[in-house]
């Protein structure tokens, strides 16, 4: 994978800050019904307030003829898994691949797809990730995915509270508006906050030189203003080290970040005690996140 290709990356933090800058008058959590015009993935809910629509400019069309896409999916122990879903999806069409119990898939797509990517992991039991794919045939090799924590015990995303899971803490403002992805996550029990660190092998496949990366759930959930983010310093970075925060676009609506690429959304630093990686600007949407040392 190449580094983020959009020239607008530098302004993304500003755009995202602007998109989530207005504090709703009262805190709220949505997730039962909807508002089609709300931000995020178009997956939202009722309520007097919604997060403002994202301001990410949509990617220019990039239609590519796709042939056979193959790979082998393994879990964090290297064992084959179906991981729920493997999809060859673009901005215009989505194809489900058939994954064998041996984790292998060979999908003869045979169509042109706009901004094609292989998405793997279902976002429910497994972390969902995406890798861009090129035109023609693509052999992805071994894809490593990782289990998310169980639903049971997952903390709720509550305004004024901190939700922690798997080395990730989100501190929600008292006035925060939580716009849960109620389309994918059907029940309250599925809407708790869950996070998991990606193992080294999973980081390598992303080719982004991340120090650490995490998968967050429920995917495509919006919180505004963005909750400040604290990550466990798993790689023992030195206190004060300056950092960059990236998020993965999994949403074809591209309201917040470009699809199937990693986009920088903020900066932070290692805490003075070296225990945490702190990103006060926060994360605008729950998806996969990665951290680089600032060059």
């Amino acid at each position: 994978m190449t580094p983020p290709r959009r020239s607008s990356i530098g302004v993304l933090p500003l755009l995202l800050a602007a998109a989530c800058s207005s504090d709703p008058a009262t805190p709220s959590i949505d997730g039962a019904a909807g508002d089609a015009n709300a931000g995020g993935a178009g997956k939202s809910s009722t309520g007097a307030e919604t997060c403002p629509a994202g301001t990410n400019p949509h990617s220019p069309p990039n239609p590519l003829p796709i042939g056979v896409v193959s790979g082998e999916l393994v879990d964090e122990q290297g064992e084959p898994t179906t991981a729920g879903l493997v999809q060859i999806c673009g901005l215009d069409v989505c194809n489900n691949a058939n994954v064998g119990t041996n984790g292998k898939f060979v999908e003869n797509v045979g169509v042109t797809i706009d901004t094609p990517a292989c998405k793997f992991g279902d976002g429910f039991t497994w972390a969902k990730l995406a890798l861009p794919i090129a035109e023609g045939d693509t052999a992805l090799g071994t894809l490593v995915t990782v289990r998310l924590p169980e639903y049971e015990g997952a903390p709720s995303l509550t305004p004024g509270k901190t939700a922690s899971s798997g080395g990730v803490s989100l501190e929600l403002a008292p006035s925060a508006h939580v716009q849960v992805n109620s389309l994918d996550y059907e029940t309250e029990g599925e809407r708790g906050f869950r996070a998991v660190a990606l193992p080294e092998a999973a980081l390598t496949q992303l080719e982004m030189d991340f120090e650490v990366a995490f998968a967050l759930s429920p995917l495509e959930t919006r919180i505004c203003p963005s909750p400040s983010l604290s990550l466990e310093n798993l790689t023992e970075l030195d206190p004060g080290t300056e950092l960059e925060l990236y998020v993965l676009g999994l949403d074809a609506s591209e309201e917040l970040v470009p699809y199937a690429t990693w986009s920088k959304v903020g900066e932070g630093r290692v805490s003075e005690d070296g225990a945490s990686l702190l990103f006060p600007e926060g994360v605008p949407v729950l998806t996969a996140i990665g951290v680089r040392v600032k060059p």
Partner: protein
Amino acid sequence: MSRSRRIPALAALGLLACGSNAPEVPQELLEGSSGCHAPDYPDSGFGAELDDVVDNACFVGYRAPDRVTSDAAHRETVAFSDYYDPAGTKGVSLLLVNTAAIWCSACVAEHGSLPEHARALAPQGLVILSTLFQDGQRNAATLDDLERWIDNFQPNFPMVADPDLQLAAYASPASAPLNMLVDPRSMKILRKYVGDQSAVMWPYIESELARRSAAH
């Protein structure tokens, strides 16, 4: 009318006129409804290719989800035959059959803009009929899934569930969305687009609507 008296009447309606606008079709009728009997519907030439006639698929959902609460009390049967308009008396000039699944991010993105297209082109006779066929984990779509979808996107066009993959006859359900244009005069397939091919589909629809309006 009491509920006990209303049910037999609605049952008769359900049997005789699939797709009636009866607002409170009892659940037992909906679940058992397989015969969206339409005696005037074309009876030959069926197929899945261009110029073939589409079979009279019949679903449960909402004919006008923007005008009713999407709940069990307002579910109704919706069939292709509802939009069969051989003489042009129903005002249907073109039928766009769309498929969607919750797992399909392209479908989610597409449904962000469909209401706007429906609003703009309904006066010229475009009817969009969208079918939700699977949830986020590829399970058959339930009516609860359908209602969450409606709550999220607020479609202003008929939206139904297709848990039995009736539209798999026209394109593999492994790929979504499908957009299929049907001529309501004959119920013949005019175009099929696998994927959201907005750049070519909407210009075609607009030109076809204009052509039909001029011919009329």
